[in-house]
């Protein structure tokens, strides 16, 4: 009984390990500014697709919730709400109100963006981040305190980042019958023939090379949960490894997974950027004003 209790405490403690509020303030800037990049550059199909509402074929949330059908005025309205909401939320002003407005509007935006048949798999962590950030409340760059509520939100983002890899390894297993059946197959060849860049087209002449790469990928995907317990240099190495993987898929196939990559920031001690930024700011301020001619 006692053992069960202490195991339960350990699990709860893991999910709510305190995170410095200054780290929240920094991550919030990154996430909300990235959402703007996302709606204008990555999921920028919402407005053009509103011209083809007949092809709207929403996923479960879009069917079960009384959500509106896509239309141009609505798409433009969502865009405006997300822009204003993100700019306010990034500053840390009205973190809950602005955060929830962004969460709802961005959710509807994504239901539209992913509601025309194809569902992309790079937005899980970003959507979780947008939903959990407003639960933290006020957090300033200069706050020295840490918070369990922030700890939970960060843990949720971290777990969704890792789930993006681990779950994809599970689905490979589910679909193929065994991890080996997937790794020994022609997935990378298939991908490169369909959308490979000139940089990697030559690899289709060497299927064995791509099989090695497939084994490498599925192994790091299955091992990815380990990252949740890494610290210091090992953690940084893991972040660089996964970021490097996304860089390679971007160069090879034009697939970057940036919405997931940005959420890797939730693993890093971002609060250390605050003194650096302050020093930069002080240096700019201390610079004597342009000489006025008199001494």
């Amino acid at each position: 009984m006692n053992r069960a209790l202490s195991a339960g405490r350990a699990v709860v403690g893991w999910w709510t390990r305190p995170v410095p509020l200054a780290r929240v303030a920094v991550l919030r800037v990154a996430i909300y500014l990235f959402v703007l990049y996302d709606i204008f550059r990555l999921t920028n199909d919402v407005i053009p697709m509103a011209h083809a509402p007949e092809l709207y074929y929403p996923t479960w949330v879009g069917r079960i919730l009384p959500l509106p059908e896509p239309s141009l005025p609505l798409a433009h309205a969502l865009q405006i709400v997300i822009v204003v909401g993100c700019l306010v939320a990034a500053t840390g002003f009205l973190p809950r109100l602005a955060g929830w407005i962004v969460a709802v509007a961005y959710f509807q935006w994504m239901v539209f963006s992913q509601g025309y048949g194809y569902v992309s798999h790079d937005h899980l962590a970003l959507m979780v981040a947008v939903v959990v950030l407003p639960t933290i409340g006020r957090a300033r760059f200069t706050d020295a305190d840490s918070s369990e509520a922030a700890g939970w939100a960060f843990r949720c983002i971290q777990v969704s980042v890792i789930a993006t890899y681990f779950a994809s390894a599970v689905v490979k297993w589910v679909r193929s019958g065994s991890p080996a059946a997937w790794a020994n197959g022609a997935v990378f060849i298939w991908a490169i023939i369909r959308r490979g860049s000139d940089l990697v087209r030559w690899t289709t002449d060497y299927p064995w090379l791509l099989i090695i790469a497939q084994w490498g990928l599925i192994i790091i995907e299955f091992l990815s949960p380990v990252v949740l317990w890494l610290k210091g240099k090992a953690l940084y190495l893991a972040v660089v490894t996964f970021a490097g993987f996304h860089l390679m898929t971007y160069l090879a196939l034009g697939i970057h997974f940036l919405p997931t990559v940005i959420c890797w920031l939730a693993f890093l001690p971002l609060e250390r950027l605050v003194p650096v930024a302050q020093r930069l700011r002080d240096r700019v301020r201390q610079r004597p004003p342009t000489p006025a001619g008199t001494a």
Partner: protein
Amino acid sequence: MSSEPAVRRISRRGLVWRLGVTGVALVILTMGQLQDTNDYFPLGSLSQYATPRDMDGTVRSVYMMADTESGERVRVPLNPQGVGVGRADIESQLGRIVDDPSLLQAIANAWSELHPDADPYVALYVMRSTYQLKDGIQQGEPEIEQLTSWEVRR
């Protein structure tokens, strides 16, 4: 002066709803993987490139062609800058489109609305190219088939 950094705790109620939401989300996410469905978006399956491909199988790729008003046959740009809807959307809804090609009217409308000065489409063709693989190596030129077509209504 600032005092020692403190840890701000969560209330018991705050803890309970957070753990509850986490549990529900993890269950849906797990179901999404085991049932292998995108339908639970954003907690659906992470099935990017999960389908195994046969070294002696085929590589199929769908694209769209159009006849324009000035009589040219052009490739339909299936992307946000073109007609909005992407290639992967068309591939995902392929069965629905083949059953009811009138859905393609939406593509022609989107093209004319998004590019009012461009040559409008008068007919659309959903095409598929199929490469044959042998031991993972492409064998010759792809086979091209037309899956369906649609006369655009004005």
